Each structure stands twice: as C-alpha cells, then as structure tokens.
C-alpha cells in the first residue's frame, strides 16, 4: 500500500491533537511522508461529549503524499459525538442525516475503531442520538468495518495499580488508542516509547503510566487478534518532489514553527537582530510563542498591547536597523494596514506574516481559507505596493519566511507572507538545511562613503533607498510617513514630486521580479492543454488532482510581483483553471494582469482544504 489516511476524533479534552501528532511523527521517523490536518473547534472546551466539542486530527502517511487526504481509511472515534461527526461530516447537524460518502469523513470501506464504553445512553443523549443503536441510526454501510473496543475499561484496567486518580486514568485513553493504531500499522514500540519520553520530559511522572497504556493498547491488538489485518506501507521514496532529492537530516515540522525558524535563519544570515512585534491571534500565535522561546538565538519578542502596536514596534525596530517582523491573521492584517502603509512610505524593511483563516470579521478562526489575497496586495490607502509571497507546504513555510526576509532587507520594502490555518497547524516532512546552504542576504545598509551626505531619499541604481539607522554617526536624518522630496528627502507637497515618488515606490517593488525565480510548471510528463493554477497552500491538493487528470500545474509562491515568465507560461494552454479557497481573488488578479488570457476558476469556501475529488470532477465536466 502506498499511502493511507488515519483520522483521530474525540472530545476536545480527549487529547486527539497530541495523539495524532505523535502518530504522524512516528510515521515520519519510520520514513513515511506525512501531511496532517488538525481540525478543532474554536471553543477551548465545549461541553464534554457534545457535537460542538468534537476535535479531529487527520494524517496521511506513506509515499507520494500530497495532502492529508480527502477521506479517512482508518478512524478512531473516542465517543458517540465523534462517531456522529465523522460519519455525517458537515451534515452532522441535519436531523435524520445518514452516512453519505460525499459528506462523510471516511470511505465506504474504512475501518472505524470505536470506544464502546463511550456509547452509553447518556453519551448518546449528549450527542443527540434518537435511538439506542448509533450504528444503525447513522446508516453506516456494512462495507465499513467497525471495530468495537472497550477503550475506557481497558485503560482503567491497565492503570489500576498506577496510583493515578480516576480523572487522570480516563485522560490516558488516547494512549491506548495510539498503541492500538501503532500495532495496526506495525510501528515499533521502542520508537514510540522514546517519543513519549521526549514529549513528557517536563512531567516525568507521566511517562511510565502513558507508556504502559500505550504498550497495553499495542498488545491488545497483537494478542486478541482483532478481526483486521495489519497494514504495511511502502517506504517513501526520497525522489518524490515533496522531499529534497539530496541526502540529509529530516524532521517533521508544523508550518508555524517552520515560519518562525525561517525568520531566525534569515536574521543570522543577514547579520541582523530578529525582532518580532505581535499580538496573540488564532491561528498565528504559535509563531510568536516559538520565537519567544528562542532568546538563545537573541530573538527579541514584544507581545504588544494590540495588533497595531505589534506592527508599529516592528517598524520602530526596522527604523533602528533590525530585521523586523510581525505575525497575525486576517483581522490583525486589517488593523495593521495603516502602519504597513507607513513602512511602504518610509521604505523600511518589514516582514508581515498573515496566517489566513476563515473571514470576514471574526469569521472561522480555526478554519483555513485563502481570502486575504486582495487585502495583502491592495489593502491599504494610497498607491501602496508591497511584495507578497505565499508558502505552499507546511515545510516550505521555512523557505518563504526566509525569502520574505531576504526580499525585505535587500529591497527596503514591506513583504507580506501569506500562509493559512492548514499550513500553520499541519505538519510535513522537512529536510533540515544548514546555514551554509541558505542563500546569501545582503541588507541595503548605507555605504560609508555617504557619511555626511546622506538623506533618506537616496537610492541605488536599482531604485532601492539606503538604510541608515540611529547610532550611526554622520547619517542623522528624519524619516516620514508624509510624502518626501525625491532629492532632499524632506517633506514635500509638490505635485510632480508626488507622482514621481509614487512611481519610484512602484518601480522598486516591480524590480523585485528580477530577483526571484521563474515560475516552474509541474508536469505529469504527458503533453496537456489544461493548466491548473493555484497559489499558496493548495499545492498538495492541486498536485494530486493534476496527477489524476494528467494535466499540468502552475503553483504560485511569488504573488506580487509575479514571476517574469508568467504570461509566457499561461499562454501555452487552452484551458487555464485557477483553483482557490475564496471566490476567485487570484483569478481576478491574473485577469487584471493578463486580460487576454482565457481564465476559468474553481472555488470552494467552506473553511476546509480542497477535496481532490471535487477538483477532478469540475475539470472533467
């Protein structure tokens, strides 16, 4: 078997995210590719056992893994509510809904492991069942293999001599499930045990009981010879495009952590102090938390009083010569708009990371969407161009965070990096680079020869102004958010000067196209007239769809400016289908740039990643 999709679902207090992550990491360590999708409610703790409190974690592992999978092959359902949600999918709230493969979270031939101790009358009532038999009521087809396991009782039995209180024992049910799943996939227990030791390093008292439950879960599978066969996955081939071809060290990494580490690497490479001004916001907060931890790397994190102060403290640090960043999500980007305009006007390097979520307004804070594209490109007052990039896998969040820093520092411009919930919380296999392998970064520091002659409007031959900062003798100057004189750098309201400055700022951002790679088409090898076009986090899904369709894919990471060969690539196809998780923002942007191109669009706006199947059906019809 090449790849398989496993979904853990339970109450938000059941530790499904932890279990899923541990299993994904084990899979990655065993040489599989992984792609994960945490799917949890916005409420931290909805009432226990209710439908609103169901938390899911899906992982696809094996080889040629592009996405976390449309639907699960193996499901662990920890309670009645989880069983209902994963069976009915988005229809879980419809009265009289039955299993329907279109909406369900698992296939018609899936294996579903259920904790039968969590299907009591009380549990069924909380999850709004109307009958005593959940399986019949949900209309789960017979082709689905249901494995009833008395998870709760077995966990209690396993830990009866542990000395733990009842509540702590019940909390360990997820480890029994993990052990069982490890047996199912023939994952060796020693690695899993080592992982638990690392995981609970700070709470050593928890290592022994959790390990015991997990091993008992494993043995339960082994000894009782459940009526299922173990699943053996092929090893991932390192030649796959999602994994670098060269040898090296690998780890599994979540998108937000990869983003944070990209910033750290860039600061070191550029010889700058890394400064992050930020304010907690789902789903971007992990970036700030990761960097707050990295004082060993000399990272300065200011948890500001609000989103505006987050970006403004960063702008202050940029004025003072640091590699300055701010991290946020859509609502925060809205709040930061005016200040980003200041950085455009003052021509300071600034990295703005927008981990997109469902909008508008508070929207769907824990769900994924690509709806901030227009805001990133255009969402400021005045003619206000920024560089806009988008990461496309959890692992390459590192690469594009690094790129964002490089382009900001070398071109004295704000750079907006778009990621999203799917990339941020998902994990993928990441080849760990060494600092030496990373591209050089040359910040636009002012040359010494301009001492005494400097003003903030002075530009080099590329049109990029020079950066001088407090502490440097002989470069004192006044920077402004007001329009400045193109020659003297002082306040100017002259009409011709304003137009020339507007064009100078645009030209500066436009020339960035000379410093980024060309667009590469991903091809199946067969000649095709059809081009799927995507940007950002949809890469995996579109790649899988293109493989199935036998067509080509152009996935954009450089949004503004676009790669220089964009028009020549697009013009080679009869059908260009732009697929995105919004109502067509990138399609509209491409049409504005290339009005002559026949651009079609396919869109989903459900707060979820694409389903590959639906893209394929759309293109075929």
């Amino acid at each position, binding site marked *: 078997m090449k790849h398989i999709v496993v979904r853990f679902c339970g109450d938000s207090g059941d530790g499904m995210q932890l279990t899923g992550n541990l299993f994904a990491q084990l899979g990655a360590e065993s040489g599989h590719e992984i792609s994960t999708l945490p799917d949890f409610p916005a409420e931290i703790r909805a009432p226990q056992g209710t439908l609103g409190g169901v938390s899911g974690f899906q992982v696809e592992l094996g080889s040629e893994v592009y996405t976390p999978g449309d639907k699960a092959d193996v499901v662990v359902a920890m309670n009645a509510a989880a069983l209902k949600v994963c069976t009915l999918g988005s229809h879980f709230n419809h009265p009289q809904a039955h299993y329907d493969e279109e909406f369900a979270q698992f296939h018609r031939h899936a294996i579903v492991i259920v904790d039968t101790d969590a299907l009591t009358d009380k549990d069924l009532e909380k999850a709004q069942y109307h009958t005593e038999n959940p399986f019949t009521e949900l209309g789960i087809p017979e082709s689905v293999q249901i494995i009833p396991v008395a998870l709760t009782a077995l966990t209690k039995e396993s830990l009866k001599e542990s000395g733990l209180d009842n509540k702590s024992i019940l909390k360990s049910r997820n480890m029994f499930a993990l052990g069982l799943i490890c047996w199912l996939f023939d994952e060796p227990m020693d690695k899993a045990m080592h992982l638990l030791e690392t995981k609970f390093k700070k709470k050593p008292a928890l290592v022994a009981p959790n390990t015991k439950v997990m091993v008992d879960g494993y043995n339960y599978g082994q000894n009782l010879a459940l009526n299922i066969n173990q699943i053996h996955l092929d090893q991932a081939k390192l030649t796959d495009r999602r994994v670098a071809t060269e040898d090296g*060290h690998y780890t599994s990494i979540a998108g937000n952590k990869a983003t944070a580490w990209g910033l750290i690497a860039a600061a070191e490479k550029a010889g700058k102090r890394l400064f992050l001004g930020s304010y907690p916001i789902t789903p971007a907060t992990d970036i700030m938390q990761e960097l707050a931890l990295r004082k060993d790397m000399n990272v300065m994190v*200011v948890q500001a*009083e609000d989103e505006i102060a987050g970006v403004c403290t960063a702008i202050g640090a*940029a004025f003072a010569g640091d590699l300055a960043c701010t991290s946020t999500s859509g609502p925060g980007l809205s709040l930061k708009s005016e200040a980003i305009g200041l950085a455009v006007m003052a021509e300071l390097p600034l990295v703005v990371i927008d981990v997109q979520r469902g909008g508008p307004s508070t929207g769907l804070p824990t769900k994924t969407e690509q709806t901030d594209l227009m805001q990133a490109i255009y969402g400021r007052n005045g003619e206000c161009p920024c560089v806009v990039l988008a990461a496309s896998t959890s692992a390459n969040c590192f690469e594009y965070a690094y790129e964002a820093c490089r382009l900001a520092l070398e071109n004295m411009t704000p750079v907006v990096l778009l990621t999203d919930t799917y990339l941020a919380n998902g994990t993928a296999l990441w080849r760990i680079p060494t600092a030496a392998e990373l591209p050089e970064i040359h910040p636009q520091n002012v040359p010494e020869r301009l001492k005494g002659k400097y003003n903030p409007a002075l530009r080099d031959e590329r049109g990029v102004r020079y950066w001088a900062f407090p502490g440097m003798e002989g470069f004192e100057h006044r920077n402004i958010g007001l329009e400045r004189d193109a020659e003297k750098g002082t306040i100017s309201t002259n009409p011709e000067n304003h137009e020339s400055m507007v064009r100078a700022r645009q030209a500066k951002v436009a020339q960035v196209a000379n410093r980024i790679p060309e667009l590469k088409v991903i091809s199946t090898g067969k000649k095709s007239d059809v081009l799927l076009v995507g940007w950002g986090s949809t890469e995996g899904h579109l790649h899988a769809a293109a493989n199935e369709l036998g067509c080509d894919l152009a996935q954009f990471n450089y949004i503004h400016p676009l790669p220089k060969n964009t028009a020549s690539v697009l013009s080679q196809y009869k059908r260009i289908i732009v697929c995105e998780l919004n109502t067509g923002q990138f399609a509209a942007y491409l049409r504005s740039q290339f009005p002559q191109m026949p651009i079609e669009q396919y869109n989903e706006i459900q707060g979820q990643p694409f389903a590959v199947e639906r893209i394929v059906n759309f293109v075929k019809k």
Partner: protein
Amino acid sequence: MEAQDYKSDQYVRFCPGCGDHAICMALQKAMAQIGIPTHQIAVISGIGCSSRMPHYLNTYGFNTIHGRGGAVATGVKTSHPELSVWQMSGDGDCLAIGGNHFIHEIRRNVDLNVCMFNNRIYGLTKGQYSPTSPKGFVSKSSPFGTVERPFIPAELVLGARGTFFARTLDVDMPTTVDCLVAAQQHKGCSIVECLVNCVIFNNGTHAWIADRDLRAEHSIILRHGEKMIFGKDKDKGLAIEIDPQTFIPRLIVVSADDTRVLTHDAHQQDPTLHRLLALMGQKRVEQVKTDDIDDELPIALGVIRDVEAETYDAAVNRQIQEVRAQAKAHTFDELTATLEQW
C-alpha cells in the same frame, strides 16, 4: 555641545506665537545640557502639530502615523536600549487615538522621554475638541459645547503605574528645560505634560497660570527636597490634612512659615501624595464654567513624581542575556541539531 548643534536645517513651521516654538527651543537646550551626541538620539512622533518636532531637531527622527509614536518608540528603545529615545505627542495623539499605546508604554516602563503637548484642542485639523478639552467647550465639532468629561493626564499616568510625571508650561523656559533634563535622567517612561497655547484655535487656554501676573499665585514649582512654597511673595505653603469625617487626605494652603509645610519627595514610591499634588487646580480645567470654583490650590509644575523601577527594555535584554549564557545553541545549525531527526 550647544543648543545650536541640535537644530536641524528645516524652517520651523509652527504658527507665529504657538507654544510649540518655546518647547522646541527648550528641547534643543535640554539636549545640549544633557550632551548626548545627535546620532545617539531618536525622536519619534505621531501626527499633530507637536509631531512635527522631529523635523526641527538634528538627531535621528521619525514622524510616523497618528497615535502610534509610542508603539514605534517602544520598538526603537527595546531593540536598542543604548539610544536616547524621545516621543513627541499631543493630547489627541497620546490620549485619544494613541491612548492604548500611551498607557502601555507607561505600564511597561519603557525608558522613553515623552513630551505630551497639551493645548486641549485639535489644531492641525483646525479646531475640534480633544480628550483634555474642558466639559462644555465649544469647538467646531462641539458647537453646543462638549458633554464629555476630560482626561486629566496626570491621573491617567499614575493609574497606569507611571514612574515619572512632570508638568511644565510653554512660557516657563527654565522649568521646561529642567523637566526635560530630569526626564532623560530618569530611567523609565518619563511623561512631561507641556501645557502649550494654541494661538489660533484655543488662545489663552492656560491663561490661569500662563499670564505673567497670575502665575506666581496660581502655580507652584515643585522641586525634590524643597519646601512647597509659592506666591508672588513666597508667602504660601502647602500642607496636608485628613478630613475628620471622610478620612480623605487633602492639600491645603497655609502660610509659608507654618511648620506643617510639606517638603517635596518626588522619589516616594507611594503615589498618594503625588496624585494629590498633580490634581491641584485641575477642577479649573475640567469644565468651562469656573465661576463657582472656589479653589485656592495652585497648579503644580515641575517634576511631581520620579521613582525607580526596572525598565522594560533593560529587563527584556537582561533576560535574553541570561538565557543565552545558559543555552547550548546560539546559531541556527546548533539549534537544528536539537531537533528529533533522522
């Protein structure tokens, strides 16, 4: 260094007669007196008349956006604590649109010198009432008089746990220079409320004390370690008494030779007395109608509060140094080596 060295080549564009001219000169004098080289000084401002100030100082300067000067300055100082960082702001910039940044820079005790130019009006937008305009104030945006209660900046500063508060007056150059020098010497967030006259839209707003004939009777200049004496003939002093019914302490005016006359202690951590001092005479600026106010207490000028506390910028940088001293990884390659990998 001379005051001249801190003057930029820009023509000063405040209105003729504006109080900001005087503060600008006082800043140049104070900077010369402090003697920090121009390249070690960063002056950050928001938007408003006062926020033009960086253009007239030959230091590093950044005229940012409305209300955000405090946040930008916090970034500059936190990343580079070795710099002398100043913030120029007004009553609108600081207390309305930038109110959040203002209270948080104070709460964190970022080592900034904040000049808050209080003319009780929006001047640059041509005459709307501000958060410090007295209740009942008639302006273009309050044609029938405001119905809002104003902020008393000192009260806000102390409420945000401020470590330094001084008040000065545009026409009193020596006190202004003294306050600015003291603000730089104070390690922490120093708020200097500069009472300035807006000659165009709010002329005479501080006349109660700005008027040369009235000033000595209506104001007192507080100096640490000195007796609280005021009046044209230095014949009055301030004392404290407890109201026998309510137990609320209050300041009273007594004769200068009264043994009860207080000695100013700006370094006292307990803010109770500082608050009483800072609020003296403020009833008079809270509302337009002052006829029924029977208050003989003078308005306090000078450094009212100046207490020690660790600054935010020093604390975060210290924490980084402590962690780095203990840490095994200091470079990216050392950091990645700590990952679980295969």
